[in-house]
């Protein structure tokens, strides 16, 4: 163990102090910069657009719309996910680069909503195909509700420790 490594990981600490602090700063930065992939499917998409427009202004949270999944951190699945569209969501999700998040917006995206019992062509919840981080209920949710979802996601991102996880994995440390 070199001197530098010892500073990064002092004895008795699973992830060193410096690493933990660094992680905190990086996660804070990431939580303030969530570029989103626009994925409007139904009426919720209108609310999503309203959120991005002047009155509610997603840009305040550092959220920029991106048309390509390669540059997005976040996908808003807003609206009824039909089985046909589900494939596309899956593909787009796979194309996003690693620390990626998903927000399911509206009843339809969360659980199929009105179609949850009898919708033969509707996916019963988008979390069946991609891991959803925050559920924003509503039919459709108010723009503020979506903003609240974004705040909730930022809280979640702030608590993440990507670097520590990576290093503990490299050292063969146990994962929680």
């Amino acid at each position: 163990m070199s001197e530098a490594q010892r500073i990064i990981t002092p004895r008795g600490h699973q992830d060193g102090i410096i690493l933990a602090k660094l992680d905190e700063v990086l996660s804070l930065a990431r939580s303030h910069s969530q570029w989103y992939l626009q994925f409007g499917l139904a009426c919720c998409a209108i609310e999503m657009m309203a959120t991005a427009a002047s009155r509610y202004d997603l840009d305040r949270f550092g959220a920029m719309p991106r048309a390509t999944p390669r540059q997005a951190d976040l996908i808003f699945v807003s609206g009824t996910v039909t089985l046909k569209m589900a494939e596309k969501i899956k593909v787009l999700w796979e194309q996003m680069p690693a620390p990626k998040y998903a927000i399911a917006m509206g009843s339809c995206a969360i659980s199929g909503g009105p179609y949850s019992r009898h919708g033969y062509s509707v996916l019963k919840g988008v979390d069946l195909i991609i891991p959803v981080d925050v559920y924003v209920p509503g039919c459709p949710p108010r723009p503020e509700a979506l903003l609240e979802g974004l705040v909730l996601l930022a809280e979640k991102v702030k608590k993440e420790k990507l670097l520590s996880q990576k290093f503990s994995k490299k050292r063969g440390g146990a994962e929680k």
Partner: protein
Amino acid sequence: MQGIISLFESGLGLPELWAFVIGVVVFSLLIFLFIALFVIVAVWLERKVSAVIQDRWGPMRAGLTIQGELQTIADTVKLLMKEDIIPKPVDKLLFILAPFIVFTATFMVFAGIPLGPNAYSGTFDLGLFYLIAISSLGVIGIVMAGWASNNKWSLYGAMRSVAQIVSYEIPIALILIAVVMYSGSFSVKEIIATQDTGYGIFGWFLFRNPFMFVAAILFLIAGTAENNRTPFDLPESESELIAGFHTEYTGMRFAFFFLAEYANMFVVGVLLAILFLGGYAPIWHVAALADIPVLGWFFGSSGFWIILKAMLVVIIQMWFRWTFPRLRVDQLMYTAWKVLIPFTMAIIVLNGIWMKLFNLI
């Protein structure tokens, strides 16, 4: 700054080779720092300008105050931490190379930006020609990116970008000739000295004659088109081509394209400042300004003035972006070949007549 340069020119007392290498590395880092700093400010500014125009707030959560001034730093950190995806069907070598070529071209242009009368590109006889010639290198990187991505939208974006940049380079070169007619030299120092007549802004080429004023406007239009910025952002039009030539790029690779785009805005600003706005000469010569305690240092330095003027042009470009809708492809070509080029040619002729009439030759 001058002291540092002469210190490096003296060789630091090291062997020639080492002095050279250290000098190159140090100055490259300085230029990189300058670009990075400028882009951090410019991206934030762009979001704020768009917010003002759309009656909203823009970034406000990231940062110490309510203005979100750390937003771009947060974005940069995030882009650094992103997964680096190289899709399987791409041409790996060119895919990796492309962002660096685009950025290198911009970087080389920045090396030639004259921040003062003693800067190398200022004394260099062909300083202006250098800026224009090198800025045409970036196209190759864009085509490379578009082709290597193996994605139809990337390819379309790259093709459009090339057609656009090649077309709009001609009016820029022609306007250059109109300016050079006055100064009689390609040297940046000479051009700025011609404008620095002691009458402040009335010495600028912008106000020399009515045709030069039109030329300045045409240069701004052509420069905006060179940068692929709205209303000429066909190469990355979101509604048609997803993100154009950088559709497949993630994380830092994308950041380099981003960096180059914003840095190019500054280059257009600098070019316009040199050609029409008096370059690094102060807007008005007031000796008393330089005596103000802290601000005097800014007012006294030539770098401050050229950056100020360039920033002004950058803000105008942002204003353009959030005002105009995108042009169609044929309209774009029409603008270049049927409006800009005939107009610039007419300007050259009329300029000559004007100079003959007023005995300026």
